[in-house]
C-alpha cells in the first residue's frame, strides 16, 4: 500500500508546476461552464420548470455533472500506450502490480486536478452562477461518497479499454466510442430523467449512469429516500462486477504477454 | 561564392529567478544577459571547396550555418552566398543550397523514399529528365535501390542518412551544408557517404561546408578547415599546413615486458613525455621532432627494456585540434 501512496504523491508533485497549460485549462473550463449556464438560462426563458426541475436545480445538476465527468476518464489510455509501444513488458518486471500503480497515478492526477482546477471553478459557480447547496447535509456527504465510487467505476471501465489493447490494434477508435457512450449515458450533458422513457430504461441496465448521474442527482435531490441507498449499493455492485471482469481480462492478457512476448 | 564579413550573432537571454516569486518579479523587472554565439567571423569560400567547420559543442558552428542558409538573421556583419543575402532572399537562396541537419529528417516520414524524392522534385521544380538521371546515379553510388520503396520510418539510421544525403544533393545545389552527417553511423556507411560527397564535388564542383566531430571525415573529405571556438575563428587554412605546424608532435606506443614501474630513460629526460598506459605493459611516449627524432627514442627505450612490439602513430588532426584548444594557435 505504502508504495502506491508514494507513487500517487509523486504524480501530485509532477502536476503541481503552474504553467501556461494550467491557466489556459482554467480559462477553457470557465468558458465551457459559461456556455452551459447561458444555454440553460435560455431554455428556462419564460418557464418555471422543465421536466419537473426549476432552473437553479437544473443549473446545479448540469454544472456539477460537467465537472464530475472530467474525472470519468483515466488510466486506460496510458495502459493502451504502454501496450502499444511494448513498455508494458518492462513495467511487468517491476515490483508492483501495474494495475494498482496506474490507479495510484491516476488518483494523484485527479486529486491535484480537483484542488487546483475544479475547486476554484465550483466556488465561482456558487458565488456567481446560482448553484445551490445540497438539499440536506446528509445527502451532501452521501453524494461525495457516491461521486468517489463513481470516479473509481469510471477509471475501471476505462481500464477495460486499455486492456483490450492487448488484442485490438485500433484502440483509438474504441476510445472515441467509449467517450461518446460515456458522455451520453453517464448523464454528463443532462439528467437521465430528461431522456425519453425507453432510453431511461436502457440506461438503467448500463453502468454508466452510476458514474455521473447518480452522485449528482443525490446532491440535487432528484434521487431521494431509500432510492439513495439502493443507488449507492448498485454503484458498488457495478464496481465489483467491473473489477472482476478487469482481473479476468488482465490474467488472460498476462498469459498472452508471457507466452507470446506481447 | 560564400563571403562572410564581420559576422556576429548575439542572443539575449532573460534571466529567470526561481519559484513563483521569481516569476512574478519577472513580470516587472527583467535581467538580460547577452550571449555572443558568433563573434566577428570573416572567411570566404570558393566554388568547389570542401571545407571542414570544426569546433566544440556550443562553439557557434550551427549558428553560423543557420545564418549562411538563411534561417537566422545576423546581429551584425554580412553574408553573401552566390551574390545574394540569404536571410533577405530566403527562397531564392534555398533553391541553390542543400542541407543535412544531423538527425532531423528532411524526408516525409510516412511515405516511401521514392515518393519523398518526387515531392522534392516538385518543390525544387526539377525537370523530369534531370530528376531521373540524378536519382539513377545516386541510387547506384549510395546503393539506394532496396530502400526506395520503404517508408522513412522503417529505415535504420545508416539507411536514413544515405537517403538524406541524396535528398540534399537532389536538385544539384551549388552549396551543401552538412551538419554532422556521419554521427552515429558504422564505418561502412561512413565510407560510402564520404565517397559520395567527394564524387559530387568532383562531378559538379559542389561546394561543401561540413561540421563534424569525426576527424576521419575531415581528413578524408576536406582540403581546408576552419576551427571555431567561442564564436571566434581560431584557424583557417589548409589541412596540410596545420598538420605541418602542429604535426611535429608524435607518439610512439610500446608494448613492454615490464618488471616493476616504467621510468623514462635518462637520454629522453626533458625531451619526451610519458602517456599513462591504458593497459598493463603498454606505454606511450610523446615528443616533438624538433627535440629528438623517432629512431633515438626507440633505441633509448630498447636499451633499457625488452620491447615486444611498437607502433608509431601519425599525427592526427584530432590531437592537433585538441592542442589548439588547449594552447591556442
Amino acid at each position, binding site marked *: 500500500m505504502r508504495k502506491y501512496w508514494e507513487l500517487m504523491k509523486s504524480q501530485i508533485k509532477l502536476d503541481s508546476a503552474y504553467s501556461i497549460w494550467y491557466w489556459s485549462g482554467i480559462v477553457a473550463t470557465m468558458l465551457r461552464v459559461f456556455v452551459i449556464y447561458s444555454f440553460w*438560462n435560455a431554455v428556462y426563458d419564460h418557464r418555471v420548470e*422543465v421536466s419537473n426541475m426549476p432552473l437553479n436545480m437544473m443549473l446545479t445538476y448540469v454544472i456539477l455533472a460537467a465537472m464530475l465527468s472530467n474525472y470519468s476518464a483515466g488510466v486506460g489510455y496510458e495502459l493502451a500506450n504502454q501496450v502499444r509501444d511494448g513498455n508494458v513488458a518492462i513495467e511487468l518486471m517491476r515490483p508492483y502490480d501495474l494495475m494498482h500503480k496506474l490507479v495510484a497515478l491516476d488518483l494523484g492526477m485527479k486529486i491535484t486536478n480537483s484542488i487546483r482546477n475544479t475547486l476554484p471553478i465550483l466556488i465561482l459557480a456558487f458565488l456567481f452562477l446560482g448553484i445551490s447547496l445540497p438539499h440536506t447535509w446528509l445527502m451532501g456527504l452521501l453524494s461525495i461518497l457516491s461521486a468517489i465510487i463513481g470516479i473509481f467505476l469510471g477509471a475501471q471501465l476505462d481500464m477495460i479499454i486499455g486492456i483490450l489493447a492487448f488484442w485490438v490494434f485500433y484502440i483509438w477508435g474504441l476510445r472515441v466510442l467509449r467517450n*461518446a457512450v460515456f458522455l*451520453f449515458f453517464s448523464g454528463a450533458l443532462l439528467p437521465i430523467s*430528461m431522456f425519453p422513457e425507453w432510453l431511461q430504461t436502457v440506461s438503467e441496465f448500463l453502468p454508466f449512469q452510476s458514474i455521473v448521474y447518480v452522485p449528482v442527482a443525490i446532491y440535487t435531490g432528484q434521487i431521494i429516500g431509500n432510492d439513495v441507498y439502493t443507488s449507492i449499493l448498485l454503484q458498488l455492485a457495478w464496481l465489483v462486477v467491473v473489477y472482476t471482469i478487469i482481473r479476468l481480462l488482465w490474467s488472460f492478457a498476462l498469459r498472452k504477454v508471457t507466452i507470446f512476448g506481447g | 561564392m560564400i563571403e562572410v564579413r564581420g559576422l556576429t550573432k548575439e542572443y539575449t537571454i532573460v534571466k529567470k529567478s526561481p519559484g513563483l516569486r521569481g516569476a512574478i518579479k519577472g513580470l516587472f523587472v527583467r535581467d538580460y544577459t547577452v550571449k555572443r554565439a558568433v563573434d566577428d567571423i570573416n572567411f570566404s569560400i570558393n566554388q568547389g571547396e570542401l571545407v571542414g567547420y570544426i569546433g566544440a559543442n556550443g562553439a557557434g558552428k550551427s549558428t553560423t550555418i543557420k545564418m549562411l542558409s538563411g534561417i*537566422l538573421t545576423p546581429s551584425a556583419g554580412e553574408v553573401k552566398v552566390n551574390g545574394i543575402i540569404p536571410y533577405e532572399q530566403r527562397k531564392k537562396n534555398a533553391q541553390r543550397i542543400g542541407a543535412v541537419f544531423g538527425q*532531423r529528417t528532411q524526408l516525409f516520414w510516412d511515405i516511401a523514399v521514392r515518393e519523398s524524392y518526387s515531392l522534392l522534385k516538385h518543390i525544387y521544380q526539377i525537370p523530369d529528365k534531370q530528376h531521373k538521371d540524378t536519382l539513377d546515379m545516386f541510387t547506384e553510388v549510395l546503393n539506394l535501390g532496396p530502400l526506395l520503396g520503404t517508408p522513412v520510418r522503417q529505415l535504420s539510421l545508416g539507411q536514413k542518412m544515405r537517403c538524406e544525403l541524396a535528398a540534399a544533393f537532389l536538385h544539384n545545389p551549388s552549396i551543401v551544408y552538412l551538419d554532422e552527417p556521419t554521427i552515429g553511423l558504422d564505418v561502412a556507411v561512413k565510407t560510402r557517404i564520404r565517397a559520395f560527397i567527394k564524387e559530387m564535388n568532383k562531378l559538379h564542383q559542389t561546394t561543401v561546408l561540413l561540421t563534424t566531430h569525426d576527424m576521419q571525415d575531415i581528413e578524408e573529405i576536406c582540403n581546408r578547415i576552419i576551427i571555431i571556438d567561442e564564436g571566434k575563428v581560431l584557424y583557417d587554412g589548409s589541412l596540410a599546413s596545420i598538420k605541418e605546424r602542429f604535426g611535429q608532435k608524435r607518439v610512439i606506443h610500446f608494448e613492454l615486458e615490464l618488471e616493476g614501474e616504467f621510468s623514462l630513460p635518462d637520454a629522453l629526460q626533458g625531451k619526451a613525455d610519458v602517456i599513462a598506459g591504458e593497459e598493463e605493459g603498454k606505454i606511450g611516449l610523446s615528443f616533438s621532432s624538433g627535440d629528438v627524432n623517432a629512431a633515438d627514442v626507440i633505441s633509448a627505450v630498447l636499451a633499457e627494456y625488452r620491447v615486444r612490439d611498437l607502433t608509431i602513430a601519425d599525427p592526427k588532426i584530432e590531437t592537433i585540434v585538441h592542442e589548439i584548444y588547449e594552447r591556442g594557435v
Partner: protein
Amino acid sequence: MINRYARLYWEFFKMHVKVKMEYRVDFLIGILSVLLIQGTAIFFVAIVFQHIEALHGWTFYQILFIYGIAQTGRALEFAFFDNLWLLGQDYIRPGKFDRMLVRPINPLFHVLADKLQADGLGQGIIGLIVLITAMVNLPIEWGMGDLLLLALLIVSSGAIFMAVNLFFASLSFWIVDSIPIMGAVFTLSDFTRYPMTIYSKGVRFVLTWLIPYGFTAFYPATLFVENADFEKIGLLSPVVATIAVVIAYWLWKKGLKAFSSTGS
C-alpha cells in the same frame, strides 16, 4: 505563382491520400468517431427540444441550421489547416521549422501542405447532413442564389476558424508552444452552436469584434432565418473573414521575423 502552389498542393494531396489508403482502418475509425461525437451533441439538443418548443425564439431546425453551418465551415478548416495546432510542438520545438526555411517555397504553405486531416471528411459529412436536414425542414424556398450565398458564407466561416487558429498558432514563434492558448480560444467556438442572443452583451461583443466566431455560423444563419434582428450583419462575414486572415497572416510574418532573429 498561385498556379505553382496549386499544383504543388495537389502533389502533397495525392501523397497524403496514398498514405491514408495504407491505413484504411484508422481512416474509417477517425471518420466514424467524428460522426459519433457530433451525433452526441445533436442528440443532446434534440432531447432538450423534447421539453421546450423554442430557445429564445429559435426552433429546433433553426438551431440545427446554425449548427450545420458551423460544422461544415469548421470541417474545411479541420481538413486543410489542422497542422497549425502542431506548429510549436512538432515544428518549432524539435527544430523542424528550420527545414521549412531552407526550402524554396512559402513556409506557411509548407506547414499546411504537410498534413491532410482525414477526419475533416467525417466532420464535413455530418455537417452537410445536419445542414441539409435543417434546410429541408425550414419553411424557406431555396433558390440558386441562396445556395451560392450559403456556400460563400460557409467558406468564410472556415476562413475565420483558420485565421483565429493561425493568429494564436503564430504566438508559438515567441513562446515556443501555444497549443494551450489555442485550445482555450478554440473553446470560445462552443458559443457559436447556439443563438448569440442567449449571451450577454459583453460576450456578444467579444465574439463579434475580437474573436469573430459569431460570423462562423450565427450571423450567416440570420440571413436566412426570418425572426432575427441581425440580417444585415451576416453579409459582413466574407469581409470579416478577409480582414481576419490578413491580420493573422501579418502576425505570422512578424513571428517569422522574430524567429529568424532568435532561432529556437
